[in-house]
């Protein structure tokens, strides 16, 4: 595995740490942090700052019974918390989004496949499978798009992205990502708005595939 060279921007880590990042992006950041010690260290530094804010914010006295009711519950059995481990190329948070099951791929044509993880008004997040050397239709975004490489690589107008690299594309970027030769490229991609395709056919298919 080559070194990760494209990282999570600092403002995004701060937003993730504080919980204000929309879920589709939060999943991509959580997955990137799982793969990237550097961004994990940066995230933990943001949490240190959050801890300082917690320490220094004005306190509110808890009501009289709160402490005893918490102490009384220490022996309660903990509610089961599903725990998802990394499986193959999928980091823990992706496995959690998949609820531990393998992705259910749907064909988008030309060998490109996707597996939708979630889609709502906050945006959408999905896994993309792109055969080696294959281009993803030319598209631009209404909003922000995050793409994390989980297997293989891709390249576009802005650079080369290998396993663990995160591409942050704003609405100004009109790009045509092309998968590298070798292994098929598997990415985790999140957007906060539907993609806009330049050519007519993908645009027609868009509502059908929710891309």
């Amino acid at each position: 595995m080559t070194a990760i060279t494209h990282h999570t921007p600092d403002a995004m880590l701060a937003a993730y740490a504080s919980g204000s990042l929309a879920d589709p992006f939060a999943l991509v950041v959580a997955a990137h942090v799982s793969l990237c010690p550097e961004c994990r260290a940066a995230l933990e530094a943001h949490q240190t700052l959050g801890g300082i804010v917690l320490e220094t914010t004005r306190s509110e006295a808890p009501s009289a019974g709160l402490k005893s009711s918490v102490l009384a519950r220490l022996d309660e059995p903990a509610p089961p918390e599903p725990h998802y481990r990394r499986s193959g190329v999928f980091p823990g948070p992706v496995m959690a989004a998949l609820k531990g099951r393998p992705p259910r791929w749907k064909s988008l044509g030309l060998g490109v496949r996707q597996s939708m993880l979630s889609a709502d008004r906050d945006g959408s997040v999905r896994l993309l499978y792109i055969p080696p050397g294959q281009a993803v239709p030319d598209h631009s975004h209404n909003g922000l798009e995050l793409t994390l490489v989980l297997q293989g690589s891709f390249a576009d107008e802005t650079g080369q992205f290998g396993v663990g690299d995160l591409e942050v594309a704003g609405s100004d970027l009109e790009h045509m990502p092309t998968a590298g030769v070798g292994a098929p490229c598997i990415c985790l991609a999140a957007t906060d708005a539907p993609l806009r395709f330049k050519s007519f056919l993908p645009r027609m298919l868009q509502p059908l595939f929710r891309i």
Partner: protein
Amino acid sequence: MTPASADLSPQTAWMLAVRDGRDREAFAALFDHFAPRLKGFVMRSGTSGAQAEEIVQEVMLTVWRRAHLFDPHRAQVSAWIYQIARNRHIDVIRKERRPVPEELGEDPGTEPDASQIMALDQETGRLKQALERLNPDQRIMVEKAYLGEMTHHEISEQTGLPLGTIKSRIRLGLERLRHELKGMR
């Protein structure tokens, strides 16, 4: 308690006693320290007192149940609890689990390295001082950001937000954290 505990901050010593000895008195001390802060913190973002207490309760129970994941070489108790509080708060509001990174547990039986824990303490102290030296507007901005009151867009657009000022402090700590994280993947 370990021989090194005399050098640790009380919060870290309590947390280690909870983690390693399931010490209820130490937990009660953590509760006394953090519950009022947590309640104030959660209420600042507009949550009612009753719901804030529910969240405080959940956070403190999570501290007890997940104590084995606390690693004093990587996190201050306040930072660790901050992250639990943000996760629980969001889980409660959205009724859904928030995506979280894979856990890095400390190897069981790792002896605390007091010098490293103290270095983290000192760095946090310096960070706190840096925060106190900011002008009031900037400080309010930092608080708002870490309370979750600013969107990602607002954080990235906010040139007044002294992320850069703070970043140099953070960077000092980064090398050490990075060293810590090596081999933990």
